Every structure is written in structure tokens, then in C-alpha cells.
């Protein structure tokens, strides 16, 4: 294990984190909020010291950097980043318990959007900004950001392992031959889309601070609102803008790259893109149909408002954002069941969304279909194809292993959470909401409620679930494997 090089990486990651705390610090300074200023200043100073020590210890990096280092490095970076990132909440005393602060920032970085706060509006603006910004940073990944800045070196090839470990999807590739260029393109697309989102929100007369924070939450598909009722109190125009942008951020970013290099044809031929659009439209239609009889009792005036709420909720769940415009816990159970299924499916690979990913779902279905055919013709040789190309058996194997790990983690977390004595629906949707990085679940963790009621153990389990969900399980699981830490 190349500890020195990993140390350097982690030091650089937390340096970037400290740099991004500065805007939040400035907002607190403008607001003359002493506790928040103190929180940010202390955190930045602490991070600088820790990063300095790490850089000093690890000043002489040498040796190789392989898949295992890449995975461990990503897992550790996220944990260290969370442990330090929650310090402003804790030091400013706005979230008095350290574990709660940690839960909140992990929920932020992993773009989950689950909160332990009953009253979000009580937070100061600097803290609210940092909370929303954590979504933006976590959405595309801080290590990818680091790769975009990294200087040219002979070791750049090894960085592919980092890109693989941090970016979601069954088969992460590059857009262009140079990894630095790939990371830059991803971030430029991300920044441009975020700015577009802010502009559209501003056109709807949203206050600037609200627009920026909401855009961060949308871009990272996070879901931290800055109001207690999330997006519900904003105008229908703003809600529709959010719906559209949430869906846009749930698309594989390489599709946007293909659009730019004028290969739109390939985008619309992409099986995952088609499945994603199909799932979204189908769900909206089904939920609208299911809600039309009960719309009046929910207070929706007319079919347009019903469609708007249905579309918003489908978008927020399928992209694993977790904003809310209405309390979908009150919806009929067919609609709720669809939402729970959407929670599991999640967004596209290579997007900022979480979940199992449409692309993986397609692969799982195709390999299942193949296995069924194999029962009929045991000698049959059949390859799985995706977008007209043969999928490597290794990827199918990995996807199936991923499914297994996914189910097992949900089972174990569900059992541990159940110790707290909430209802089964609460427990299972709490785990699903955290593990798929969505945010709100149903019943006691529904859109109008929060995660504050869970015990310390449950919160720890949920924190791990969120991290495992964002990093796609293996970078976190590998940290718990004994052979990772043994000498080769």
C-alpha cells in the first residue's frame, strides 16, 4: 500500500475543502454572525494544519498507485473530508451534537439530503450555504476536481483508478484520452449547467441566495432545501424549473459531451438514456392517473397541479435529489410504491445522481434474460449486448456482485435500524433513502419529517450507508477488509 501517495492525495482533498469554505466564511462575515465566522475560521485553520502535517510526512512520494490504492484512497478521502467538513456546524454550535453534524455533512457530500434538523430556517446563512455547497462538491466528486487541477506527471495513468472509484456507473470510461481533460470537461459541463439553473431560478424572481443554494442542491442531486417545506412555498414556475434541472442532472454527463461534439444521434440511441426517459414519463403518467380521484382531498386544484406535483416528485426521487413540493406520504399506496421502486432504480450512470442506476438495471435484466434462456438451451452461447456492443463478461459479473452487495447491505442496515422501534415502512425507506442518496423516505422519515429521532447506532449505520451508496459500495467495503491492510 502506497501510504505516502495516499496521504498527499488526502491532504490535497482537504485543502480544496478548506478553499471552498471561504465563500461560506465571507457570507458569515457579511452577516456579522460571530459563531459561524468562528466555526469556519477554526475549521479552516485546523484543516490547514492537518494538511500541512500530512504533506510534510508524505513529501517524498514514490512507487506505484494501483487499483487497490485508488479505491482505499477514495474511501478514506471521503471519510476524512466528512469528519473535517462538519466542524463548522459543530464549532458554531448550530448543530450541537458532533454525530448530528457528521450525519448532516455526510448527507450533504453524498448528495443524500436527509437531515436531522427539525428547523432548517433557524440556521445562519453561512452555514446554510456550506450545507448546500457540500451537495455541489459531492455531486461530481472532489477527487475528480483534484484530477482536473492535477499537474501533468508520468503517474497520471494511475489516476484512472481514482476516477473509476469516485464516478458512478458500471463501466467508467474517459471522454478524451487525457484524464485531466476528461475531469475538466466533466466539471465545465457541471458548472455551466449549474449556472443555467441559477439563471432560470432568478428569472422566476427567486432571491439570489435561495437560487444559488437551490441550484447547488439540484446540481448535486442532493436535496437540502433552505426552507422547512423545501420547495413547496416557491412559485409553480420555480418548481417546474427544478423538475427539469433535476432530470437534466440525472442524465449521464457523457451524453452532454456527445451533444457538444455534435453526435446527438448517439445520445438518443443510448439505451440507458431511453430507459431513463421511459421510466420517468411512465411513472408520471401512472402517478397522475392514480392521484386524479384523490386530488381534491390532497388540496390539488385541477389536473395541471396534479401533474406538476407528480412530475416533481418523480424527478426528485428518480434522480435521488430529495426536494419536496408536497407531502407524498399522504398519497395512495400505489403511488408510494412507484416512488419506492424509483428510489431503488435511481438515475443514470455517470450522472450526479445515486441509486442502483438505470444502466446497471438494464444489464441485470439482460443477464437475467440470458440465464433464463440458458435453462432452455443449456449449451447456448449468448453474449449480452448494450448499445449494439458486446458487454464484457467481467462487467456483468461486477454488476451482479454489485446487486448482491446492494441487497446484503440494505438487509443488514434494515435489521440494525429496526432496533429503534419505528415502523417497518419507516425503517426500510430510511435505509433506502440514505443508501440511494435520496433524502426523504416515508412515514416517520417522510418529506415533512427528519432523521433526528434515530439512535446513535442507527445514525452511524445510516452515515456508512450514505457513503457506501455515493461511492458505489466497494470503496467503502474495501476499508473493512483485512486483506486491504495486510502487506503484500
Amino acid at each position, binding site marked *: 500500500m502506497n501510504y505516502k501517495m495516499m496521504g498527499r492525495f488526502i491532504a490535497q482533498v482537504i485543502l480544496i475543502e478548506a478553499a471552498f469554505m471561504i465563500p461560506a466564511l465571507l457570507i458569515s462575515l457579511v452577516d456579522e454572525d460571530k459563531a459561524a465566522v468562528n466555526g469556519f475560521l477554526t475549521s479552516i485553520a485546523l484543516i490547514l494544519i492537518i494538511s500541512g502535517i500530512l504533506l510534510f510526512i508524505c513529501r517524498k512520494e514514490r512507487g506505484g498507485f494501483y487499483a487497490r490504492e485508488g479505491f482505499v484512497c477514495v474511501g478514506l478521502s471521503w471519510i476524512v473530508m466528512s469528519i473535517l467538513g462538519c466542524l463548522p456546524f459543530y464549532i458554531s454550535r448550530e448543530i450541537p451534537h458532533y454525530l448530528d453534524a457528521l450525519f448532516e455533512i455526510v448527507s450533504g457530500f453524498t448528495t443524500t439530503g436527509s437531515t436531522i434538523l427539525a428547523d432548517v430556517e433557524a440556521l445562519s446563512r453561512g452555514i446554510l450555504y456550506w450545507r448546500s455547497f457540500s451537495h455541489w462538491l459531492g455531486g461530481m466528486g472532489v477527487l475528480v476536481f483534484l484530477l482536473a487541477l492535477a499537474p501533468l506527471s508520468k503517474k497520471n*495513468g494511475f489516476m*484512472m483508478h481514482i476516477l473509476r472509484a469516485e464516478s458512478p456507473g458500471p463501466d467508467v470510461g474517459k471522454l478524451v*484520452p*487525457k484524464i485531466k481533460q476528461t475531469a475538466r470537461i466533466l466539471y465545465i459541463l457541471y458548472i455551466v449547467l449549474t449556472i443555467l439553473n441559477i439563471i432560470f431560478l432568478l428569472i422566476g424572481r427567486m432571491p439570489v441566495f435561495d437560487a444559488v443554494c437551490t441550484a447547488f442542491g439540484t446540481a448535486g442531486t442532493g436535496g437540502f432545501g433552505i426552507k422547512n417545506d423545501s420547495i413547496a412555498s416557491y412559485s409553480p414556475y420555480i418548481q417546474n424549473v427544478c423538475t427539469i434541472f433535476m432530470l437534466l442532472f440525472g442524465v449521464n454527463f457523457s451524453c452532454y459531451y456527445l451533444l457538444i461534439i455534435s453526435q446527438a444521434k448517439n445520445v438518443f440511441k443510448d439505451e440507458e438514456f431511453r430507459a431513463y426517459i421511459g421510466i420517468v414519463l411512465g411513472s408520471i403518467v401512472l402517478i397522475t392517473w392514480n392521484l386524479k380521484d384523490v386530488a381534491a382531498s390532497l388540496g390539488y386544484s385541477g389536473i395541471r397541479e396534479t401533474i406538476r406535483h407528480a412530475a416533481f416528485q418523480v424527478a426528485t426521487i428518480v434522480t435521488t435529489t430529495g426536494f419536496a413540493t408536497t407531502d407524498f406520504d399522504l398519497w395512495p399506496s400505489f403511488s408510494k410504491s412507484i416512488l419506492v421502486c424509483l428510489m431503488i432504480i435511481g438515475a443514470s450512470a455517470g450522472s450526479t445522481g445515486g441509486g442502483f442506476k438505470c444502466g446497471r438495471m438494464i444489464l441485470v435484466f439482460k443477464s437475467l434474460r440470458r440465464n433464463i434462456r440458458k435453462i432452455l438451451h443449456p449449451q447456448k452461447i449468448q453474449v449480452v449486448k448494450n448499445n449494439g456492443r458486446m458487454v464484457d463478461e467481467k462487467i456483468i459479473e461486477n454488476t451482479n456482485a454489485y446487486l448482491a452487495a446492494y441487497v446484503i447491505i440494505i438487509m443488514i442496515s434494515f435489521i440494525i435500524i429496526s432496533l429503534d422501534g419505528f415502523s417497518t415502512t419507516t425503517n426500510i425507506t430510511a435505509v433506502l433513502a440514505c443508501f440511494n442518496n435520496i433524502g426523504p423516505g416515508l412515514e416517520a422519515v417522510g418529506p415533512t419529517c427528519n432523521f433526528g429521532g434515530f439512535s446513535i447506532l442507527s445514525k452511524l449505520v445510516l452515515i456508512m450507508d450514505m457513503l457506501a451508496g455515493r461511492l458505489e459500495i466497494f470503496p467503502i467495503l474495501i476499508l473493512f477488509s483485512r486483506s486491504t491492510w495486510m502487506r503484500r
Partner: protein
Amino acid sequence: MKIIIAGVGKVGALLVKQLSAAEYDITIIDLKQNILEDMVGRYDVMAVQGNCASMNVLLQAEVEKADLLIAMTEMDEVNLLSCMTAHGVNPRLNTIAKIRNPEYSDQVYKMRDTFALSLVVNPDRQAAREVERLLKFPGFLKRDTFAKGRVEVVELRVDEDSKLNNLALNDMYKIIKGKVLVSAVARKGEAITPDGNFVLKSGDHIFVTATMRELTIMLRNLGIIAHKAKRIIICGGGRMSFYLAQQLERSGITVQIIEQNYDRCVELANLLPGSCIVHGDASSTTFLESEGIEDCDALITATGLDEMNMVIALYGNNYKIPQVITKMSHIEQSEITDTLHLGSIITPKELCCNSIVRYVRAMDNQTGTAESVHSIIENKVEAIEFRVDEKTLHCGESLRYIKFKPNILVSCIIHGMDTKIPDGNSSFQVGDTVIIVSSGENVIYQLNDIFA
């Protein structure tokens, strides 16, 4: 610059390693997924899986935007087809193909335009030529030529009983009485840029820059006996041996080739009527003795197995053969191989790769880029040839007043017809050619990179 490397074999992998470190966008094509994955995990490149001669695969690799295609698969025919197809898609593409079959080599060279080839490389032929160069000038382990053949950087080993052992460089220059410059010393795997007080120890490898004439004087004054090889034994009858024997036959040198495979022996005997083809096992000492290994002037081990080549070279060294040349195709030259007395080591893939890298850098024809580059100690020391132009800094200033980066040495200045080993008072002018030896960590892309 966008480069496609088709076929990641021995040469292909080395090319990826050398070119990916520079600012090139590289896409690799290969049939085998696991090789591609390995390369993508190690180097900053993009991979496309498939047959590089198929237009579909080439388009996936974005051949229409590429500047250079390097076809390095094992099959000559595939390389040719790949280059022709790619050139059809993108007429401004440069193409390099590896052609190894001797039966094709002449026709491919003559029909380069038909096949749309910018450069044809043949590792075996290049290796044969290199061996021939070494044979013509015994005493050196390696020779690199600069400035169209006017300056050479040669490698010498300091042995226990050598005059050079325990000698300071200033004293060495006095003995030699010629203008030569020790540009780099390899000691125990470390590269050192020496100054005049540096004392040589046995086991050091020194790299000397000089003109051909000065080198002759140096060898004579150092008492290194250098008589031309007249009787040469080549172990192994592969392609390289064929090319080499063909060349040597023309210069009237008696060549004896030992080959294990009877059919190949017959084939060689047909192709090389002037040489003596012997059917037998070159790894057997008794057989080698019966073939008169003791009184040959040079032994070249060129079987398909690196291990076998090394062992035969050690035998040869034991019999005190004046010149032993070992071919190594897979095993990389390292500290461990340096401790064995293997004589000169020839690595075909490296020679081939170097010539391609030289072509690539020449293509990248911005002002001030290198004219040619020779890696003289693998990954540690490079000798680079530059042309001084208007944009070069410090023209006309004495070298002693110029601040250079550490471990940079201006080892030769060629001004018109005058080749000069510089001292502190020398200077370079616009239009001169300079040879820079860099043994530092810093990569030198342009001449101005050498200044601090």
C-alpha cells in the same frame, strides 16, 4: 497532437510508456481486453477494443481527428491494411507501420506512397544495423549518433584492470589528449553528471561525447585494443540474424550462424550462400567449442529466448571473446543485468521505439523542439539535439555566465562545419546545433527549458 497506437505488443507498450508522459493524446487499439485494461490502469490513455484494420474500430478511435497512426501489431498485413484504411478516412494522417517480414521489406519501402506510409520500421533490421555499427567499432557498449553522424555519444565500461579505474576525469582528459567530454556516469543504477574532479571506479558506465576522430584517438590512448572483427558467430537464426549476416557478408566478414531448427537452417543456407549455417544447439558448451568459439572475434547471441542469450553471452565472456553482443527482447536492462558481463546489450523494441519517438517529436515541429532524442540511460539520462533559433535565450553569451537547471550539460556545439566540445568560454549562435545531456527529473521539451 492526437496519436493512435494500434497493437499493444512489446514495441506498442514501450511507445505508450514513452509517449504518454508527454502532452500527447493517445488512443490505443488492441484485440485483447485485458491488455487494454492493464494499459489504461497504468498510463493516461484511452482504449478501443477491436481489429485496428477495420474502419469501424478506427472511427471509434476518432481516426478522422488523429494526426498519427502507429500500427504495431504482430501481423505485417494488418499493419498495412490499418494504415491504408486510416489514410483513406483521413488523408492528412501520418502513418507508421511495423513490417518485419524480410520478403516484404523492399517492396513496402518502394511502394510507401501506395500503402500510404509515412515511415516503415523494422525492429529486427534496426537491431541488425545497430550490431553492425558496434562491430565496426569495437570497444563501445553503445553508440548514439547526433548531428547527422558528426557527433557520437558512446558508452564505455570501466573495468577493474582498465586504465580509467580510480582516475579523476581531469587526469583522464590529459591521457586522452583529445577533446572529449564525459557527459554522464551510471554508477549502481544512479545517473551522475560529473565534474572534472570526479573519480571513476570500476563498474561505472561512462557516456562520452566526441567526434568520430577523437573517439579513435581516445581508444588508442586509453590502450583499448580495437581490431576489427573478422570471424563472427551468431547464435540463433532469426530475422535479426538474417539481416545481420546479409550485411556482414557484403563487407566480406565470415559469419557462422548456429540454429536449432533444421528447416530454418535450410532456408538460411538458401538465402545466405556466403555464410556458414550450422545445425545445432547453441546452449551446449561442447558444441560451441567444437564450432571454435575460442578463437572467434565476436559472439552475437540472438536466439528467441533472452535467458538463453544471457547464458551464452556469459560462456562467451568466459572464453575471453573480445566482443560479445546480447540481444534482449523482453527483459529490461537493469542494475541486475549490468552486473553480469553480457557485453553490449541490444534491445530491438527500444531501438524501434526510439526511432518512432524521434519521428513524433520531429512531427511536433514547433520552434525549439528537439531534433532528435536518445535515451542513454533508460528513463534517467537523455541526450537531446536542438537547433538554436531566434527565440533561444542567451545566444552569444559565454556558458559560464548562463544559469542552467541542475543536471543539465551542454555537451557539444556544432557551428557550421566546426564541431566543438564546449568549455566555460564557449557560446552558441543562431543556426548552431547543440547537444544537451539531461540527467535530472525535469523533462526537456524545448531548448529554453534548460535555463534556470
